[in-house]
């Protein structure tokens, strides 16, 4: 009895120490976020003078900074935000739809050679780093755009097209793995009932894919929303169409180093992600895990 209490006490102390360690690490991890929030409330002079305490912070200054950033013609927050949102959402919808369609065809023909070949090409392409295709990609898109008369660079459709291409392999890979696990009997039964193949897909298979489509959407969404290199190359570093990361880069470049505005801009760029995370924490974390384990 006495011994048990001793063990309990030691364990409690251990737990306490571990909790403190956990809190310290969390503080370290969250510290930069704290600095961003804090210094968005301050003017340049007080940021330089005292970057880590609340001296000089005020809501009025936050308002000044926010309006300076939002109305800045280089940053143009709402426009960049809208562009990023359109690109991300449209790409995600198309990727989910086209990906599921392609994955279904591939997995339902997995005994056939052509299907295996396509699948293997998709898998193999996942090791291709963006750097090796980025330069020819731009010139190809430029030529194609000139040829068909629809601009592929400097345009939202062009970049959505590119994201469908780059996201395709991973999407198909994850979805195919899932569809393979759906019993074929289900589709056969539907076919006997007179359902067309496309009807079978949209009415029976597609609804079953909901969890795995959530996963790919999270993975693709995090990538597309945060991506800098592809949009900076396709849209130009400071072109007419700007996504949020490109706008941040253009803004920092043009405003030498006005930390008050840069940190406010960073805050604006971070907030949407954090809000989504707060609402869909479990889905995002699970999606990331599944993506990693499968990829």
């Amino acid at each position, binding site marked *: 009895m006495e011994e048990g209490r001793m063990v309990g006490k030691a364990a409690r102390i251990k737990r306490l120490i571990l909790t403190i360690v956990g809190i310290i690490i969390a503080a370290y991890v969250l510290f930069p976020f704290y600095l961003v929030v804090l210094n968005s409330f301050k003017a340049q002079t007080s940021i330089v003078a005292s970057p880590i305490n609340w001296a000089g912070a005020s809501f009025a200054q936050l308002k000044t900074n926010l309006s300076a950033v939002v109305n800045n013609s280089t940053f143009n927050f*709402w*426009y960049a935000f809208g562009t990023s949102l359109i690109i991300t959402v449209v790409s995600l919808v198309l990727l989910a739809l086209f990906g599921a369609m392609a994955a279904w065809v591939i997995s339902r023909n997995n005994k056939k050679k052509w299907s295996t070949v396509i699948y293997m090409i998709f898998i193999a392409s996942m090791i291709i780093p963006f750097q090796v295709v980025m330069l020819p990609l731009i010139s190809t898109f*430029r030529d194609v755009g000139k040829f068909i008369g629809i601009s592929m660079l*400097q345009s939202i459709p062009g970049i959505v097209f590119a994201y469908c291409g780059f996201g395709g392999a991973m999407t198909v890979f994850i979805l195919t793995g899932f569809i393979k696990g759906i019993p074929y009997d289900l589709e056969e039964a539907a076919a006997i009932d007179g359902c067309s193949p496309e009807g079978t897909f949209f009415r029976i298979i597609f609804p079953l894919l909901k969890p795995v489509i959530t996963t790919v959407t999270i993975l693709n969404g995090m990538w597309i929303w945060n991506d800098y290199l592809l949009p900076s190359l396709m849209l*130009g570093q400071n072109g007419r169409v700007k996504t949020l990361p490109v706008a941040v880069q253009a803004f920092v470049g043009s405003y030498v180093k006005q930390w008050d505005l840069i940190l406010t801009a960073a805050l604006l760029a971070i907030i949407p992600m954090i809000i989504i995370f707060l609402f869909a924490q479990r889905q995002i974390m699970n999606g990331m895990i599944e993506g990693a384990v499968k990829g």
Partner: protein
Amino acid sequence: MKKKVLALIMAGTMIFGLAACGEAAAPVADAGAAPADDAAPAGDASGEAAAPAASSGEGIRLVNGKIEVDAMLKEAAEKYTQETGVVVTIESMGGGVNIQDTLKGYYQADNMPDIFVCGSDADFDNWKGMLVDMSGEAWASDTDAAYKNDGGTVGFPYTTEAIGLAYNADILEKAGVDPKSITGPDAMKKAFETLDSKKDELGLTAVIGWCTEPKDLYWSTGSHSFANYIDSGLARDDTKYADMLADGGKIDETRFEHYAEMIGLFNQYSDPALLTSGTYDQQILGFASGKYAFVTQGSWIGATMTSDDADAYKEAGNFKCGMAPYAFEDGIDTILTNSPSWWAVFDNDNKADSLAFLQWLAGEEGQEILVKKAGFISPFKSCTFIADDPFAETISEYTAAGKTSSWHWLKNKSGLDQNALGQLYADYALGSIPDAKAFTSTVAQVLQQYYAE
């Protein structure tokens, strides 16, 4: 069957390859509409219910390389739009952005601005055959500062700038240091020592605001400061050291070592918080608030001091400013003045609008904004405005006395400041290059290497 399907897919991919390119671009109409919707509030934000441009739909776009005057240029553009209905978009770049590279990217992406900044022979050579010859424009006969090459008059001069050792006249006076006495290295050293000994009493953080941060401020060291080695004390058309440099990256080691000793002095007396990792804003703010007696930027900082830093400058008493020569050798008595860069007009469908805008800028109304608001020192003879700028007076004094040299970093090999010199200055400040002698030999070696590539 299998073969048939395969063939079908192959055929499908081949034939409709291009077709579906269009397919993906199908939402082009929507997308086209979306930015247009969004563009409207953007127009409002700039205070302009953008009347549809009369001549060429989109209006014109100017890429400006002087971020300090972004707001003033936008003001001028707005006024111009009000008068003529032609929308002028100002896109300002600065800091770590390599403008020419960005422009090349724009060119690749079919997104060329109509007017853009060019600062060197190499810059203009990038666009050979693509620029409008402006020799027929009215302003061209009103200035000596236009940029000309075998393509004609291709650069519009918009300001005159000066590089000298900028000082806070009030502080120097309080410390009993006569700026006129700085005529050589010993006098400069003495002035620095005097100021340093009275730092507390004068409220100084450091004697000089000198910054060698290499990522974003390489141009300040690698082009502007280095220009003093090349040009200080020389006649305006003397390109002795610039030619030496162009010839395989050679330097005059004796002269350079003297210059290096002065840089060593700056390293010693600069604010350590600024020296290796500071920013331009921090540097100017420090000077404007009276924390540094000297600062190593050129006359353009006047615009920053009277706009962004106006509050701090006011608090420090709106002190008088002046410039001393960078007298790293006895007898150097000039400051450097020149047109820092020019605006070139890209030969495209909008060129008539672009030329009209530049002509307007050179005229009465344009000059009023550029000189009085942006603090530009007009390169146009007919201009009667005098800049309300802390450095305007000192520049005109030197000009009147004929004590100015030109600068020639335009002749430097492209990227010299960013890819080589900027880092060396930082190394010297950090102490990884220990002294003037080592700095000289390293610079000599690196330059040779850089020019050999």
